[in-house]
């Protein structure tokens, strides 16, 4: 009898998953982190930026190989977004590992948690998720007040931009990530949300996904007033800018990458996109 119970327990322990790895909401994996973790590892630049924006940059001990901020230039690199090195993370003895969950990094991230690194997985694909993640990171670091202030500040910027946008004529905007193939910001993309806040109409109304491959014919018929070029390939942009439907549109080059990745820099991205669309409208002073 006792043996049967033991066997059942062993089978149960084998079956019960260590923790759920969710792609759509903040999730903790592995052991519980201390209330105010001092040793933090981040696996994506937007998470690094959030920690720095919360004033806890000095607690970072490791970052991803895509991080290029001067604040973290001297820190250990622990691999990329889908290919973090479990060994490098574990040997930093982190008290908290911040990751963006994806099916591609599931295995290494679960391994870290299993080996005793407290993990907080935070999806950051759109504005709502960014704000939620900022609050969640604030709570994890014991900096909830600061996180709340940061979120309020972002919300104020959004409201201010929206108010200024209402005074302008709505423009049809085509936001282009790449030309060969033509990839545009569709519904659900971060750029699409920023365009809406800035009072613009996304001209890629036939796009069916966030980063949609678009036909040149659809682009020509999109009646875009402005084309925002976020692609690297200038030669291809030149070809497209001569097409009949796109020739009369105002072509602008993306000044910075704040518009491209969701994170605490989104208020800068929003101001940038507004200034790009309505150069005459002037920029209201932002709190920071």
């Amino acid at each position, binding site marked *: 009898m006792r043996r049967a119970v033991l066997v059942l327990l062993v089978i149960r322990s084998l079956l019960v*998953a260590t923790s759920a790895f969710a792609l759509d909401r903040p999730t903790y994996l592995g052991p519980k982190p201390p209330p105010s973790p001092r040793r933090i590892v981040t696996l994506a630049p937007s998470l690094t930026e959030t920690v720095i924006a919360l004033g806890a940059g000095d607690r970072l001990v490791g970052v991803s190989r895509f991080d290029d901020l001067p604040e973290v230039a001297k820190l250990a690199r622990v691999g990329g977004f889908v290919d973090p090195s479990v*060994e490098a993370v574990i*040997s930093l003895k982190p008290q908290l590992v911040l990751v963006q969950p994806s099916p591609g990094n599931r295995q290494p991230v679960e391994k870290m948690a299993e080996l005793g690194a407290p993990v907080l997985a935070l999806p950051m694909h759109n504005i709502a998720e960014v704000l939620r993640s900022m609050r969640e990171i604030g709570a994890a670091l014991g900096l909830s007040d600061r996180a709340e202030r940061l979120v309020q500040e972002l919300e104020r910027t959004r409201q201010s931009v929206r108010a200024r946008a209402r005074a302008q004529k709505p423009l049809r905007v085509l936001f282009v990530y790449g030309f060969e193939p033509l990839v545009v910001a569709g519904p659900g993309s971060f750029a699409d949300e920023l365009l809406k806040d800035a009072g613009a109409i996304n001209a890629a109304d036939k796009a069916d996904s966030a980063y949609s491959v678009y036909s040149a014919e659809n682009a020509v018929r999109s009646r875009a007033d402005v084309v925002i070029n976020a692609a690297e390939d200038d030669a291809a942009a030149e070809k497209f800018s001569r097409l009949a439907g796109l020739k009369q549109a105002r072509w602008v080059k993306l000044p910075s990458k704040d518009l491209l990745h969701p994170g605490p820099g989104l208020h800068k991205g929003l101001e940038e996109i507004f200034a790009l669309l309505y150069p005459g409208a002037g920029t209201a002073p932002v709190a920071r």
Partner: protein
Amino acid sequence: MTPEDAFIARPLRFGLARTAALVGALAAICLLALALSARLGEQSISLRAALADPTSTDAAILWSLRLPRAILAVIVGAALGTSGCALQALTRNPLADPFVLGVSGGAALGATVAIAAGLGTASQLAATPIHEALGRISAPSLFAFAGSLGATALVFAGARSGGQSSPYAALLTGVIFNAFASAAITCIKALVMPDKLGEILYWLAGTLGYERGSTLAAAALLQVVAIGVMWLCSGSLNLLTLGDDDAASLGVHVARTRLVLLLGASLSVAGAVALTGLIGFVGLIVPHVLRLWLGPDQRLLIPCSALGGAAFLTSSDLVARLLFSLFHTELPVGVITAIVGGPLFLVLLRRRELQRVEGL
């Protein structure tokens, strides 16, 4: 004693003692690679701390990260080496590798479909109670395994439909299926989101990850059976390399032996690619290097290819991990096998040719 037995019982090229010494030496190299792979890595660890304190980070790195991964490399390397060796002999084609029979195409297509559909683990496919057990198996692995078995079945059906099965029919069906699969993958790649595209490319490049002990045990069992079957058939495989008619006249059941060998090789490769994706070059080069060195006797080549493949892949993975400090990421191990293995093979080939010219 049948003629087949007479041929199979033919004395080994090196004599029993030297053969045993050779296999022993290769096994020792393999063990050394395993030990080095566990000892060295991106981080320097203290063996004393790892052995004294099982809760230390050093112990976690040694026992939970490096050793399982090195064992995975041994299992997969052995599978690729052996099946490459068997398929080169079976198809009488020096360019054959473990992936010629459509297995790679099937596996890649399966994994690509799983990633494109956004399946993380196999648990998303079934309801409880097997739900939780499946939660530990990644969906791309499961789909890759299913895909490679499906491709194998297709290749067999194609090869046998003409009545008499021939190695060329199987080979051609495999090559054509691989072409079809790569077109289908290109099609899926064009349709999916950029973030999924990254995952697909990463999987296709072939990487050694961190598998659970139970997965490793199951994979090892599969390979012991598959490699064992190929080794048992290696005497008949010697005869098959003479041509079907000669082999048949010497008492080999040609069709049956070929079927068993193809099945063994396919199963072995399917088990390997499901865990690691497509790691190239090991199965092509290891049998060739060993043949240059040991001659064409399959009875010796099959076990030596298993050990050689294991040692080669384990050391390549060690190199890939050690290069982390340089690139801040691990290179796919397939890159190392080709970059290190290619030139090495050309040097060996050239030396061999020179020896032959001088010997004349």
